[in-house]
């Protein structure tokens, strides 16, 4: 397995003692595989992603093991950690308006990722930025590059973030509710782009969402999380037809009874 999380526990120090956010979380993502992490807010799914990137809160205590391509992520510091973040993992977060620095233009965001983080020359980074934006389906590339985040829509910004994420061809993409903040039509478009790019470049995906259907449409396997614990793991069909855990059953029951996406269709409307 490419990403191996074993017995990951995380607690935060608050007034009145440590509060446990993650408890003995174990999951794995294979090379090129799309794995879902589904649960309601507060289930700890975002924190799991942050632990892989080592951006957990300052006052958090982490135990367990996270291995990426055999490297123990939890023991990394300094330059090796930075290299890992720059070249092997990329994250796509929920609110692109918050992710991008509001006082810097889009071009700077992309060049920063490629030049400052990944070591490309500025000229090469600039060139590649344009190519990447085209790859994610943006027209008027020059205009977008010169724009500031507040001038673009959420959907457009999320595409920019995806462009930045795939720039270094990471082996793993961490997606934290990437489409939740977008309207339905845009959601579908952005998911499509993410999925296409991922498959094209053979990147693995750890996809966090509260939407079981969405996960089912995109992922090969799904982990269900509740209160900091992984309660069930399985392929979408299995979860749908034979949920082993009552919570999974609950999630299934509370879905809007509209479209049932079958995993074999890939994403689509």
């Amino acid at each position, binding site marked *: 397995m490419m990403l191996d999380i074993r017995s990951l526990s995380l607690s935060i120090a608050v007034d009145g003692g440590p509060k446990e956010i993650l408890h003995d979380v174990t999951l794995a993502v294979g090379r090129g595989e799309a794995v879902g992490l589904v649960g309601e807010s507060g289930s700890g799914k975002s924190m799991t992603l942050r632990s892989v*990137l080592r*951006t957990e809160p300052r006052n958090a205590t982490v135990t367990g093991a996270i291995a990426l391509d055999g490297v123990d992520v939890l023991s990394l510091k300094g330059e090796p950690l*930075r*290299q*890992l*973040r*720059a*070249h092997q993992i*990329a*994250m796509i*977060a929920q*609110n692109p*308006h*918050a*992710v*991008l*620095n*509001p*006082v*810097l233009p889009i071009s700077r965001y992309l060049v*920063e*990722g490629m030049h*400052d*983080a*990944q070591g490309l020359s500025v000229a090469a980074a600039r060139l590649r930025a344009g190519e990447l934006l085209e790859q994610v389906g943006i027209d008027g590339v020059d205009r977008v590059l010169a724009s*500031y*985040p*507040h*001038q673009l829509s959420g959907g457009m910004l999320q595409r920019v973030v995806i462009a*930045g994420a795939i720039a270094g061809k990471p082996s793993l993409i961490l997606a934290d509710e990437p489409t939740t903040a977008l309207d339905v039509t845009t959601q579908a478009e952005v998911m499509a782009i993410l999925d296409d790019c991922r498959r094209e470049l053979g990147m693995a995906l750890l996809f966090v969402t509260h939407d079981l259907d969405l996960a089912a449409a995109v992922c090969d396997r799904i982990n269900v999380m509740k209160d900091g614990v992984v309660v069930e793991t399985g392929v979408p069909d299995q979860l749908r037809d034979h949920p082993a855990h009552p919570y999974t059953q609950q999630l299934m029951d509370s879905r809007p009874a509209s479209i049932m996406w079958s995993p074999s269709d890939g994403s689509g409307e």
Partner: protein
Amino acid sequence: MFVVRRLLALVGVLFASSFLVFSAMYAAPGSPENFLVQGRTVTPEVLAAIREQYSLDDPFFVRFWNWLTNVLQGDFGQSLTNRQPVGELLAARLPTTLTLVLLAAIIIAVLGIGLGIAAGVRDGILDKVVLLGSSLGFAVPTFFAALLLMSIFSVGLGWFPVFGSGEGFFDRIWHLALPALALALPSAAVVARITRTAIREERDSEHSVMATARGVPARIVLKRHVVRNSMLPVSTIVGVHIAGLIAGSFVVEYAFTLDGLGTLLVGAVQRKDFAVVQAIAIILVAGFGIINLLVDLLYKAIDPRVGTKQES
């Protein structure tokens, strides 16, 4: 355009302020010329001269208009106490006040922002010191800071002079060093505190955390995301405080007996020399307004979101 609108607004405010300053004289009980004379016994000729100077025989708005046009041409009338043209008095005193305010402004910016950044970025002793210092510093009135510094460095150690503004460039700076420091101290404390808070907030902001998560080196994240963004609220506060130096300077000039506009103003108020008071008031309001305008423009230059309709 944004700049033009603000300039027009400033002109409007200055006009209204000058009206206020001008008509203040008439708020006092009794007739204007008696107020100007303040119970001193004067000859009828002097009274007539005063009526002439202030065109007290003319209707109110004509008087205001005459006064205003004179002021705009640099004629501020005559000082009642020593018959000198007020304009000359002002010109003689302006350099000291300007130098003082400029020095203090530099101290506020450099010391305040510098300490704030240093405290915000690390959690160490410096941070605790800055926190404590700023919590107390803002409560230290400028005049007290002036006397404290005077007591320790002038009277006690003899490193700096106790009064006067000095001659020549370096001598002047030496004389104005303590006053400028006293003037800057409470504001620098506030600026340091605000900067520290802003830096800490930006450290935890999503774009900074994500930049680190993307592998951007720590030093660059600090420079481009943390410090750069925190300068937005910080520049506003620094600007506000620099504008506030205008009023604070009176006090420091008085304490150190400097020959600036402030001491002139205080003296004029005590002697009821109203022409001087009016003139200085107008100049200070204009200075205040201009500095505030510059601060607004600076903020707009730093933050691309200002002035646009869509805000994230």
